[in-house]
């Protein structure tokens, strides 16, 4: 097996007396589509935050692309090629939709490659990503003029604009209608075809099941299952966690 792109070993995190993550192990191979599920409060977002550097894991190690990244500030991880979308969209409100995409291009991509983008190239890249998510007609609008779906698409577009190797989509479909979920799934599949590794965190089982090649389940900060989606959902422990 090729060297994993992301390797999480025994990662733990507690908030005071509450153990949010308890010795999590997870490996993700390059190009893989992994679904991460678990009931509310099971530690999915905490795990994402530990991987992306928003929070620091107290025990264990996180390796990305052959490098140990514990303690590395979040922006450096993004520059290495680890991008995320936030569960609740966090656009830059004072910038236009297209300018929102300037940021990862100007910072993450530029710091990685060192090459300087001309304003025309910058604009071309933005238009490309906006077209991909179907927001090109709103390029000059402010984020506050967008609908909830569009905001989530912007969130994904901004993560994509960082040209990541691994994209973590944190509940990017919550609260969306069936057809909107299909839109976003289609988008993620396109990214996967481009060779981007994707971790999808989601509550909507039908979406996760159709998208993921592998499924990992977190319950109360512990990983209780990891394997082929069909096998995992038939796992008695998983059934117990979800159905009580």
């Amino acid at each position, binding site marked *: 097996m090729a060297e994993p792109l992301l390797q999480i070993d025994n990662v733990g995190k507690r908030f005071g007396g509450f153990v949010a993550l308890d010795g999590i192990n997870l490996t993700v191979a390059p190009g893989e589509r992994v679904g991460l599920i678990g009931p509310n409060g099971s530690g999915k977002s905490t795990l994402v935050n530990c991987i992306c550097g928003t929070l620091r894991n107290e025990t264990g190690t996180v390796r990305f692309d052959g490098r140990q990244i514990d303690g590395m500030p979040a*922006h450096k991880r993004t520059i290495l090629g680890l991008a995320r979308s936030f569960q609740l969209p966090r656009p830059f409100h004072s910038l236009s939709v297209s300018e929102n995409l300037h940021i990862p291009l100007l910072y993450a991509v530029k*710091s990685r490659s060192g090459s300087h983008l001309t304003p025309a190239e910058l604009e071309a890249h933005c238009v490309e990503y906006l077209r991909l998510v179907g927001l090109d007609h709103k390029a000059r609008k402010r984020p506050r003029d967008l609908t909830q779906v569009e905001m989530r698409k912007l969130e994904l577009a901004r993560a994509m604009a960082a040209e990541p190797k691994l994209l973590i989509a944190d509940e990017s479909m919550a609260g969306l209608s069936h057809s909107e979920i299909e839109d976003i799934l289609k988008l993620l599949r396109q990214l996967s075809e481009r060779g981007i590794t994707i971790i999808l965190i989601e509550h909507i089982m039908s979406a996760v099941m159709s998208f993921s090649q592998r499924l990992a389940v977190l319950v109360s900060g512990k990983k209780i299952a990891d394997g082929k989606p069909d096998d995992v959902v038939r796992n008695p422990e998983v059934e117990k966690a979800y159905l009580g």
Partner: protein
Amino acid sequence: MRSAWFILICVAVAALTFLGLRVVHNDYLFIAGYTVLQFIVLATAWNILGGYCGYVNFGSAAFFALGAYTSVFFHKAYPLPIPALLVLSAVVSGLAGLGMGYLTLRLRGAFFSIATLALAVVLQTLVVNWDYVGGSRGAYVIRANTVELFGFAMPYVQYLFLLMLTLVVLAIVTARTIERSRLGFGFATIRDDELAAEASGVPTLRLKLIATTLSGALMGMAGAPFPYYIGYLQPSSAFGLEYAVNSIAMPMIGGTGSWIGPLVGALLLGIIQQVATVTISSAVNLLIVGVLLVVFVIIAPNGLVGFVTQYFRAKER
């Protein structure tokens, strides 16, 4: 507009202002004008941190005073021409800005503002107890009546005015350059959402330190010629409330989004204050600021510039 053109226009406007005032031939205009210019620099400097990055600094007076006291110190220890003092003050205040940035890394919003206020109090206490620069008694800085510049004899006040005018051009060009650069975009993301900024690869910590350093250095430069202007510097005037209040109020009233805002706000408030000082009393200055600030916060929360652009956008529709 290209940057070179912008600089050229700024220099031309500055030159016309100076020559125009010389034609009028009234020294008082230079004295009053100096104060207005000084506030343009302070407001522009404040806006780099407060407007672009969204970190409200209540300690402007400390940076201003640090610049002024750097001048006093060198005036006593090793007299230097004012342009050299400007550079030294920029270094001292810039370092103070960097230090403040480091100390307040984890503070946001009101907590950051409180910390800057505390910094001002600490620095004032230090200066009050430092005898060499005059302590609480203050220090006299005797200046010449005229100064020789490029073979011309020029009244000292005009010389100070000219220096401050140069600083205004420097500050405005710096602010505008930042605004249209990668740095400016980075600052905007810090103002909007630091977590999302980090996730997009923005080194928020480094950018914040750049902003506190730049802002501090410019404020220090604004303070450097002050002892020569006023002749007698005491802590209560260098750390005066009006510097902290004005450097916040002027960008707020003008508009914090772009370099024009602090310029417009400082010109407007500065001139009103100078007129009021002559016609009524200097005691009403802070009252004017307070009333205008309240009015603007209610009617035009995005300042004059925001108000005007909003008006035109509404008309377009």
